[in-house]
């Protein structure tokens, strides 16, 4: 029963990692930007939820989706204010990465100044729980699972069956040809950032509802999400999702035999192992055609 409980715990944390990883991978594939500031967008979503639910007093049923939309908008704004001016100047990937680090640092410092360094709790008391035999499910387990089950198939349908989705995939495959074929790249970048940030928003509202909001919360999740993208295979979205779930489950299952202090070692170990033995990730073979 302990193994099963740890597996279920891992699925829930894996769902959060997967959402963040897929959002990051979507942005990276579509724009070639190593958007480390995705962590700051993640944190923004938490504070957006706090402002909507507490000072503004909106009911949760309104505040939660509104926070996701606000996160999407913030991500799009970040592209407009940070990356677009740099693209116009012909800045390369290294410059974009440095700008992204700057944006992340600036955002975190701003959150600390505006909201303080303390964790802001969004609610009192523990989460509702459900017992199935000897296994206990919290509301986080259930919500994270439901979100993952709905969002990933919907995202896949969007990318494969809609005009916007096909345009995003075309841009990811061959940006120059996509532009020549009439795709408005700048407009599409905004959509990509908004979509990728919305996925981060979905992850952060679950965490914020459970554990509260603090300025550096996006950084730790972002790091694991990056490892998930590498483990799953850079350039392949289902790989990023699979990597997220795999890391969450592995981290949790490691507790079966190891102490909690080894959890970071598990993540670093996975990163090192894949970089050394399989740098293309689990689904590296899918990168032959550079699928989004």
């Amino acid at each position, binding site marked *: *029963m*302990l193994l099963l*409980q*740890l597996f279920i*715990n*891992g699925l829930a*944390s894996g769902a959060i990692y997967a959402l963040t990883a897929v959002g990051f991978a979507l942005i990276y594939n579509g724009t070639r930007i190593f958007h480390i500031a995705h962590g700051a967008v993640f944190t923004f979503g938490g504070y957006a939820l706090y402002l909507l639910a507490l000072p503004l007093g909106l009911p949760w049923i309104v505040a939660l989706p509104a926070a996701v939309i606000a996160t999407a908008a913030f991500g799009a704004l970040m592209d407009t204010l940070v990356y677009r001016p740099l693209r116009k100047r012909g800045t390369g990937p290294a410059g974009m990465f440095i700008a992204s680090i700057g944006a992340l640092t600036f955002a975190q410092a701003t959150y*600390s100044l505006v909201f*303080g*360094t*303390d*964790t802001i*709790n969004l609610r*009192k*008391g*523990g*989460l509702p*729980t459900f*017992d199935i035999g000897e296994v*206990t499910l*919290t509301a986080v387990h259930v919500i994270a699972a439901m979100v993952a089950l709905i969002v990933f198939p919907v995202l896949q349908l969007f990318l494969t069956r809609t005009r916007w989705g096909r345009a995003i995939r075309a841009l990811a495959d061959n940006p120059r040809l996509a532009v020549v074929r009439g795709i408005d790249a700048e407009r599409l970048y905004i959509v990509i950032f908004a979509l990728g940030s919305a996925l981060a928003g979905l992850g952060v509202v679950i965490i914020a509802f459970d*554990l*509260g909001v*603090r300025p*550096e*919360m996006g950084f*730790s999740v972002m790091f694991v999400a990056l490892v998930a993208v590498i483990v799953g295979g850079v350039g392949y979205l289902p790989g990023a999702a699979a990597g997220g779930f795999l890391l969450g489950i592995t*981290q*949790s299952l490691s*507790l*079966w035999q190891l*102490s*909690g*202090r080894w*959890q*970071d070692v598990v993540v670093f170990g996975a990163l090192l192992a894949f970089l050394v033995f399989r740098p293309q990730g689990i689904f590296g073979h899918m990168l032959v055609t550079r699928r989004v």
Partner: protein
Amino acid sequence: MNHTARTAVKLLAISAAALFAGIGAAGAQEPIRLGLAMPLSGQNGEYIKRYVLAGHEFAIKEQNEKGGILGRPIKLFIEDSRNDGASAVSALNKLINVDKVVAVFSIFTPVVLPMLPIAEEKKVIVLAPSVEHPDLTKSRWAVRMTPTATTNGLLIAQQARKMGLKTAATFAEDNEAIRVSVKAFVAEFEKLGGKMIGDETFKNQDTDMRGQLTKLRAARPDALYFLAPSGRPVALALKQISEVGFKPKQIFTTHLVEDREVMALGASMAEGVIYTAVATTPEFNQKFKAAYGYDSDVNAGKHFDSTNVLLQAIQKVGSEKDMTKVRDAIYNFGEYKGTIGTFRFVGSGESLVSPILKTVKDGKYVRYQP
């Protein structure tokens, strides 16, 4: 002497008088410079600013309103040490070399212990009243005003066995001082015939501890001894203990269960928890609350007391120029009646004070009665 020479001499005399008067005035106003290097950011930052820093500032403010020490005001220079040794050493160097402080207040074992070699070299007293690691007072330039981690662990183990609890597990932050408490608890518990069946840790920045708590739940210990350095992880652990359905017969922890973070998440989560504490006086709490608008806690009291012990020692010696004498004055202070009880310094930086046991009953913090 001609007219010009007389004028020159007069001007020289006036300048010399003004210069010496200025030096005299400056000397009279030169503050007594004290430093504070603590983690003012991160997970523990808000707690430290609210209680620990406030305790020092309150003591200094009170003393300055009475005219300072030796007719001079006291000035506190503040640096953020973050929660790591390298930043703490950096902060200490700045306080000593730039701000010229003669003593430094600090907190948390991983922050304080790395400072000690520099403090010893520069003859700067480090007052870390709340640090429980026994190694602190191996330094001849450190002062503690709290029961040690060993004392707390021993008391809890003895209580657990008195209550007939046969098995126990520990769940603690991975931190040097806390490991000492855990070690003392485990040794005493096993010595008294108990059996340890679980031992889990979490890191300072962890917020989701459900994995570790799930593992401890599976072990089904009678007692859980939980240790953290601030209120936030205590609050999170109590919440998640309830969420994973972990129900040991008794949960033990430290006075941090009185922290407002626990109250913010719901006092019912802490109902029945037994914890070690040092009692605070109502008089101190009253005046602290009047000044700050919220209740004090044990750490506010300890840090307030440590400031006053230092200031009284400087007063006794007559100067802060020779800090060796000030240090010796603290070490041989004898009895000090503080806000959290009576301390006894008997020749070292270790002040002898015993913890008590308290519990949360009907949402109130009361002395534990079996």
